[in-house]
């Protein structure tokens, strides 16, 4: 792919020229690619793909004031550190689920005392730690318990008693469905009334199957369902028509990044970063991942996760 150049015309009368570089997901190659792109005069970069490579390349783009839109780099720091003002992304960051869970617990369920549990794994513990951070930063609720549980243990009644003892009104759990279903059924069995909120690892039909009626009322976040969007179907059809195959991972978000970039250039009428960034942050764009615009830090609003609730044996998206 290296050095392959093609061009096409877009709305607004501007010519767009593609300059393609491959960083192989390696930070050391990413800096080379970035330097090459900047010296070739690229004004907008769609990429990079991996968080590590993106992080390595960003200082170069920041210095040159080149707009970067990644379809796939999910590391929270990329937007939250504030170090990379030219960075945007069309995918939710790793902490998005925890943020959604905390906002939901406090805003919608009125949680005051939250017990945060996790399964000690990377995914679950990451979720729990972000949740803890957001709860503490928000200052509206209190963390009454923060604990790891042992996956596969014969029972969790000691932890469940601890939840009761802590006086929690809400339990947030980071982990997967086997532990979650044991936890919810033991919580029910011990007659403890709490809200149970969890992550994508629990938003799985097996959870409902295994936990049965104890699953009713459990909340879990999961990716927004975008497969029904007209633009999404259209983009996939177009890809099939052109390449004869189904699109790969991150197709939706990469397509969205491209549409956002084209819109920014067209509306701004120039490739000046400040003018484009203003459009990115104020104008909504229809994309295959939904109608999006970007917040001050560069994360896409309207992208990412929804809260689901188990109702009558099914996960129902909460609007």
């Amino acid at each position, binding site marked *: 792919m290296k050095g392959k150049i093609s061009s096409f015309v877009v709305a607004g009368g501007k010519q767009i020229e593609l300059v393609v570089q491959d960083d192989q997901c390696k930070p050391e190659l990413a800096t080379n690619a970035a330097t090459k792109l900047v010296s070739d005069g690229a004004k907008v970069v769609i990429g990079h793909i991996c968080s590590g490579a993106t992080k390595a390349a960003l200082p170069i783009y920041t210095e040159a004031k080149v707009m970067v839109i990644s379809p796939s780099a999910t590391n929270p720091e990329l937007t939250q550190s504030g170090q990379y003002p030219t960075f945007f992304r069309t995918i939710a960051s790793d902490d998005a689920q925890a943020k959604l869970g905390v906002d939901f617990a406090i805003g919608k369920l009125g949680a005051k005392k939250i017990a945060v549990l996790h399964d*000690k794994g990377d995914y679950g513990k990451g979720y729990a730690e972000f949740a803890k951070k957001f709860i503490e930063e928000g200052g509206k609720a209190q963390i009454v318990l923060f604990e790891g549980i042992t996956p*596969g*243990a*014969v*029972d969790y*009644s*000691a932890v469940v008693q601890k939840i009761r003892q802590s006086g929690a009104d809400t339990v947030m759990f980071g982990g997967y469905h086997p532990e979650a*279903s044991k936890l919810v059924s033991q919580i029910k069995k*011990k007659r403890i009334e709490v809200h149970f909120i969890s992550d994508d690892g629990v938003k799985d039909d097996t959870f409902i199957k295994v936990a049965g009626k104890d699953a009713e009322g459990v909340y879990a976040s999961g990716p927004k369902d975008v497969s029904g969007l007209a633009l999404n179907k259209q983009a996939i059809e177009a890809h099939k028509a052109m390449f004869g195959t189904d699109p790969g991972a991150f197709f939706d978000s990469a397509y969205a990044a491209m549409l956002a970039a084209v819109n920014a250039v067209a509306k701004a009428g120039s490739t000046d970063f400040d003018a484009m960034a203003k459009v990115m942050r104020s104008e909504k764009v229809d994309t295959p991942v939904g109608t999006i615009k970007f917040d001050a830090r560069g994360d896409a609003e309207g992208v990412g996760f929804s809260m689901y609730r188990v109702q009558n044996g099914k996960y129902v998206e909460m609007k």
Partner: protein
Amino acid sequence: MDVQYFFELFLSGLTRGSIYALIAIGYTMVYGIIELINFAHGEIYMIGAFTGLIVAGILGTMGFPLPAILVLAVLVSMIYCAGYGYTIEKIAYKPLRQAGRLSPLISAIGMSLFLQNYVILVQTSDFVPFPSLIPEFAFLEPIAHIFASSDFLIVVVSAVLMAGLTLFIKYTKMGKAMRATAQNRKMAMLLGVDADRVISVTFIIGSALAAVGGVLIASHVGMVNFAVGFLAGIKAFTAAVLGGIGSLPGAMLGGLFLGLSESFGAGYISSDYEDVFAFSLLVIFLIFRPSGIMGKAKVEKV
């Protein structure tokens, strides 16, 4: 100190401990008689749970009442697992009885893996819901929030089974033969004890008890999976070592000790370190008393 919280943790430790004890008996009996750590024992427990699930499913569709389903599921899975235990011994351990200590140990590990994969193939690798077979006892309603019917049943059934087993070993002819074989197999054989039969009976009893545990616990936690036997087996084995491997009351005490210490450790310190806690205790204990709580210091047989 909050007395009620202490009590809650005590009861949850008691339930957990009874589970460990019930499985630990299988390890300790086998070790007592042929000095083999039967690593496939945890898998017998898992197969017990699966058998219970299948039986409960069939009887459930036939419209049997709940207590009958529970009793039948337990009985069928006891018989089924007893068959497994018996067969495993004949296939995997008996041919290796003269082969030194490591060969049967490897054979046991192989058996454990074999059984797990066998269940994956013929059943599923997914988590499967287990119906709640244990009825809600009305008299427990006032304390159901700290000690549910299933906790109660697990503790009571374990206690009854262990008492029964103790009496069996103490007073029956087979029990006497088992004790004799455990003390000195060669001598027992010279005196007319059929050691092969004793060993078979040991496997049958241990497996049947594991099956009871499997069904009750699966019903208690509401799910079963091919891997549930692994951790339960490791913990029960720890309990058996803690209590003094080879000793029956030791296995019970070890199980309870382990269950309670995990429960209190999780409750008062942190469940992050639940396993660390259990195994640290084991290490510390064995430094000061290598033969376990009830174990006798071993005299090398010459």
